[in-house]
C-alpha cells in the first residue's frame, strides 16, 4: 500500500501556481529525495503532504487518509499522530534543554515521559547532552535533537526540509547515517527536500521539480 498518493495535486497562491497538477506515489518505507531550484515547489509539496497546507485542487491520500476531507482538528490530529518534521532551521526552544525540547513534542502528542525522551536522545548519540540548551550544542547536535523530537511520537512519515543544509560534511553524513539506521528500525517513510545531489543519493528515489512540475525521476537504489 502506498503511503502517499497524489493525483492532479495543485497549489495556487492567487495567480501563482506553486505546484502544477502532480501525480505521485510513495510506497510505505521509501526514502524519497525531492530536488529542485528555489521556487520549484519542493516546500509546497512538503507542506501539503505534511498536512500543513491544503491543496487548491486534486486529491491527496497519506497513509490511507484523504487529507482534503479532514477538518482542521482532524488535520491537527493527523500531523500529531502521523508526521514528524525536521527543518533546516532547527526551531528548538532556546530556553529549554535538549530533553525538554523532546518532551515538548510528547506533550503536544499525548503526555510527556522523560525516560522515553532520554532514550530517544541516547539513540541519536546525545546521552551526554541531555541537560544542555540548544545554544550550548553544535549545529549537528541540534539537528540530532530535532531528529529525536521528530521520531519520539513514532511517525509513519518523516519529512525533512533541507535537514542538512546548515551542516558541514561530517555532520551531514552523521545525520544521514542516523536517519538510515532509524528508518531501518522504525520502518517509516522519508521525504527529504534537498539542493544537494550528494544528499539526495541517500534516498531510494529522487524526483526533480521545476516551476511546480515534476520533470524527472530517477531511482538511486534498486
Amino acid at each position: 500500500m502506498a503511503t502517499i498518493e497524489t493525483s492532479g495535486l495543485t497549489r495556487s497562491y492567487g495567480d501563482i501556481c506553486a505546484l502544477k497538477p502532480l501525480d505521485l506515489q510513495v510506497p510505505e518505507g521509501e526514502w524519497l529525495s525531492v530536488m529542485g531550484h528555489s521556487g520549484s515547489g519542493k516546500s509546497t509539496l512538503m507542506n501539503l503532504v505534511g498536512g500543513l497546507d491544503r491543496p487548491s485542487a486534486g486529491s491527496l491520500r497519506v497513509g490511507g487518509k484523504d487529507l482534503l476531507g479532514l477538518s482542521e482538528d482532524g488535520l491537527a490530529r493527523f500531523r500529531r499522530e502521523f508526521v514528524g518534521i525536521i527543518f533546516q532551521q532547527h526551531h528548538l526552544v532556546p530556553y529549554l534543554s535538549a530533553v525538554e525540547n523532546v518532551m515538548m513534542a510528547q506533550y503536544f502528542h499525548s503526555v510527556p515521559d522523560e525516560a522515553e525522551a532520554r532514550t530517544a536522545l541516547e539513540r541519536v548519540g546525545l546521552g551526554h547532552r541531555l541537560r544542555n540548551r540548544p545554544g550550548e550544542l553544535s549545529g549537528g547536535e541540534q539537528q540530532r535533537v530535532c531528529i529525536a523530537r521528530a521520531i519520539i511520537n513514532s511517525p509513519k512519515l518523516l519529512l525533512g526540509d533541507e535537514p542538512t543544509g546548515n551542516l558541514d560534511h561530517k555532520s551531514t553524513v552523521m545525520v544521514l547515517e542516523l536517519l538510515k539506521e532509524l528508518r531501518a528500525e522504525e520502518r517509516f517513510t522519508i521525504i527529504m527536500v534537498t539542493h544537494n545531489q550528494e544528499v539526495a543519493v541517500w534516498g531510494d528515489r529522487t524526483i526533480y521539480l521545476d516551476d511546480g512540475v515534476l520533470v524527472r525521476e530517477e531511482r538511486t537504489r534498486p
Partner: protein
Amino acid sequence: MVALKLIPQILSWAVIALVLLRGFPRYRTTVSAAACSGFALGAAGMLALFRFLPGELCFGLARDVVGGTFLLAWGVSVAAVYRSTGREKAMSWGERIAQTPPFAAALALASGFIAGAVCACRIPGSEGNLLACLILVLAGVALVFAALALERVLPASFTVSLPGLLVLVAALLLLGSSSIIRLDLFAPLTMKVMKFTHDFVHQFFESMLIPDHLFIRPYLWGYIGLLFGKEVGFWGGLVIWFVPALLIVLAIRLERLPQVSHIRQGAARRRVTAAAIRARGFRLVVPVLAVAVLSGAVYRSRYPSVEYWDPKPMPILASPSGEIFIPKKGEVNLEDGQLHKYLFKQGGKEARFFVLMTPEGKLTVDLDACAICKPDGYGQAEGTVICYYCKTLIPLETVGKPGGCNPVPVPFTEKDDGVHLDGLTLINTWSGTIQSTARPKEGGK
C-alpha cells in the same frame, strides 16, 4: 404562578434524566421508561398521601426520603475513595450489579419517584389538585424525552462514573427540595450541627475535659467561644453537605492509570495514558457539577424565595387592672389565620408576642421567641412559622404547644369578643425566657 414555582424542581428533574441516560447509554429505552414511570408514580403517590395523611407527615416523609439519598451519597462517596486506593482490584459484586439493566431501571425508577414526589409537594392544595398533578406528570415525561434528545448530541468523551452519577442525582434532589421550605434539609442540618456542637462542648465542660482554670488564657476562651456561636452550625453543615461530592472528586483524582508497561511502542503507551487522563478529566465534570448544585441548594436554603409574613409589632396597653385585651375583630382580624404581633411595655420592661389562629381554628397566644434561641422572632409562610434565628420550621398545627423551638405559649383566656391575658404574666414569661437565650449585645429585635 405554580409553574414558575416549580422551575427549580422541574429543571433538576431534567438534569437528573439527562445524567441517568448518559450514565447508562446502553439502556436508554429502559432508563427513560423507568424514569417516566417513577416520576408519574412519585407525583401520584404524593398526591394520594396528601389526601389521606396530615400535611406535616407527608412533608416529613418526603424530607426523610430525600435525606436518605443524601446518606446514600455519603456511603457511595466513602466507598469510592476506598476503591480508588486500589486495595481491592477485582470488580466487586456491587459494581457488577451496577452495570446491569435492572439496576439502571431501578435507579431511574427511584430517582423519578423521588423527583416526582418533590415536585408534587410544590403544588398548592395538593389534597385535590388532580389537574395540576396531571400537567406535572406530562411535563416530567416531556422533559425525559428532551433529555433523551439532548443526550445524543453530548460528546462521547463525556462519561459519567457511577459514584459521580449518584452524588449528582442526590444533589439535584436536594436542590429541588431546598426550594420548598418544608422539605429543606440544609437549615435543619445546620441546626443539628449547632446543637450537637453546643452540647458536645458543654459536656466537655461538665466532664472537666475543658477545665475552667486560670491557665486557659483569654484568647483560648475566644476560640472556645466560637464553638458556641451561631455560625458553627452553618460551617459544620457546609462540611457535611459538600463532603460526598468532594470525596468523589478526590476518588476520581486518585484513580490509578491503566497499566501500559506491556505496550512496546512509547507513543502508543503515552497515547493510552493520555486517553485515560482525558477520560478522568471528563468524569470529574459530574461531581464538580454536583458541588455547584449543592451550592445552589445552600443558597436556596439560606435565601428562600418565599416572603415571610412578618408584621411590625403593634404597641398595646394593659387596663389599670393589668389585663391586656385584644378584640377578635378590631384593627386586625385575629381569625384570618395570619400571625399578628404586639409589643407590650410596662415598668421599663417590654415583651413581644403574637396571636395566631391555627388551622384547627384555635386561637393561640405565644411569645415572639422560643426557649432555646436568641429572640429574633418568627415569620409565617407556607403553613409554617419559622424561627429567624435557627431557621427551624414550626408547622402551624403545633404552634401553641411548648417545647423545642416552638414559640413559648402565654396563658390567656378566649371570650366571644377577643383574647384576654395578664400583662405581668406576659412580662415575666418574656423576661424568664430571654434571660437564658438573649445576649447582651444582640438581644431582641
